[in-house]
């Protein structure tokens, strides 16, 4: 059931300890900063977080990690110049890392939303990221078996939502949003604008409302602080 809420705190209130939480965004584009801050405030812990990175600087996901609220990261690129909180936790053995090639991350998230039980891909074949995984040769190419990544909750950012929860995004801020929305049991979206049902062209809807559970509006501009 789709609900529109007035605050990010209300939006994330149902997130339980031990949840797997997908967080959209690639770099700052598409990152739901306000929802991540609310996740910080709500106190949920022992989280598995799925994101392309593992937090940057002293904000958002990095803070969640610093505070010990993230048990495990599933991501493609944890190490960055300003990923010091993750780096420290990792070196201290206080956070688990599942490192996933970015395309496998995307395809495994997509598989979860699409009901696929697993798939073979050439990506990673013959590398240490395939160690311990099932492999087979298909049409002469080595391939690795990869499994879907499901989540309890997805926190994503879109440009606009209509009254049915249909979403459109903006430029490269689209990135992981649509596939995370489909892969999570509960999808929570922050949007810049809510428009009347019928105002979005049905040809251009990117995420149909069936994938959306909770919507909160964060007016554009107020979200720039973290950029």
């Amino acid at each position, binding site marked *: 059931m789709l609900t529109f809420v007035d605050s990010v705190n209300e939006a994330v209130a149902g997130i339980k300890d031990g949840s797997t939480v997908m967080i959209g965004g*690639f*770099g*700052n*584009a*598409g990152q739901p900063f306000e929802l991540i801050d609310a996740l910080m405030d709500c106190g949920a812990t022992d989280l598995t977080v799925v994101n392309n990175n593992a937090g940057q600087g002293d904000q958002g996901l990095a803070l969640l990690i610093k505070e010990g609220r993230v048990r495990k990261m599933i991501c*493609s*690129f*944890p*190490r*960055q110049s300003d*990923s010091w909180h*993750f*780096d420290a936790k*990792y*070196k201290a053995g206080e956070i688990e*890392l599942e*490192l*996933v*090639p*970015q*395309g*496998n*991350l*995307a*395809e495994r*998230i*997509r598989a979860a939303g699409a009901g696929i039980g697993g798939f073979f*891909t*050439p*990506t*990673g*074949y*013959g*590398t*240490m*990221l395939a160690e311990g995984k099932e492999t087979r040769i298909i049409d002469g190419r*080595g391939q690795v078996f990869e499994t879907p990544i499901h989540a309890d909750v997805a926190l994503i950012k879109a440009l606009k939502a209509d009254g049915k929860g249909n979403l459109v*995004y*903006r*430029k*490269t*801020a*689209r*990135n*992981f*949003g*649509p*596939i995370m929305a489909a892969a999570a049991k509960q999808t929570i979206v922050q949007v810049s604008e809510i428009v009347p049902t019928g105002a979005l062209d049905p040809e251009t809807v*990117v995420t149909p409302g069936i994938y959306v559970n909770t919507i909160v509006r964060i007016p554009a501009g107020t979200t*720039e602080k973290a*950029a």
Partner: protein
Amino acid sequence: MSIATSLQTSATPLGRDDLARLVARDIAPGSFVNLGIGQPTLVSNYLTAEQDITLHTENGMLGMGPEAQGDEIDGDLINAGKIPVTELPGASYFHHADSFAMMRGGHLDICVLGAFQVSVTGDLANWHTGAPGAIPAVGGAMDLATGAKDVFVMMTLLTREGASKIVDSCTYPLTGVGCVTRVYTDKAVFLTGPEGVSVRETFGCTLEELQELVPVPLKAAPAGG
């Protein structure tokens, strides 16, 4: 080995920009290309309008334009290196699974990547030094390495310590097996693949001089290679 002399196309080793210009020149008109992050992105500076190259960035865009300047900067429009870029007419946006499906499905003509090492048969090592305690990070490298029709590498031939990055067999953890088809370095362009390595041209050295730097047997590539 008199053929060696004819391979030399430059009296001096190439700088990063000259190398980028060379790669750009070698990209066939109408190609769809991914330039990864870092040094290979320099190639975009030398692509001509006549070439009509379409650039892909794996965070969800075809038709990427040059780096954004001043007022053009838009936090929602970045490349895989998280640098603000611009949009060209005829661009399109898509989500991450669609973007990687495009790469992994073999639709890109060329991707250009950096490397730590490339083996004679085109194995690529570019994501992890394997050093104890190093935090690994792979990003889209493995997908690009296995997905593009041609994988070009741009790198210096030698490490700071003087070791060749063209090797018989990679000692760093692999990114992909047998995926690299060409290696552009400051001292030579190498062709790699199932038949082993050959040299297309040299810069500021002869094939014999190049051979002294590289611990695998080199031969000149057939013309047109």
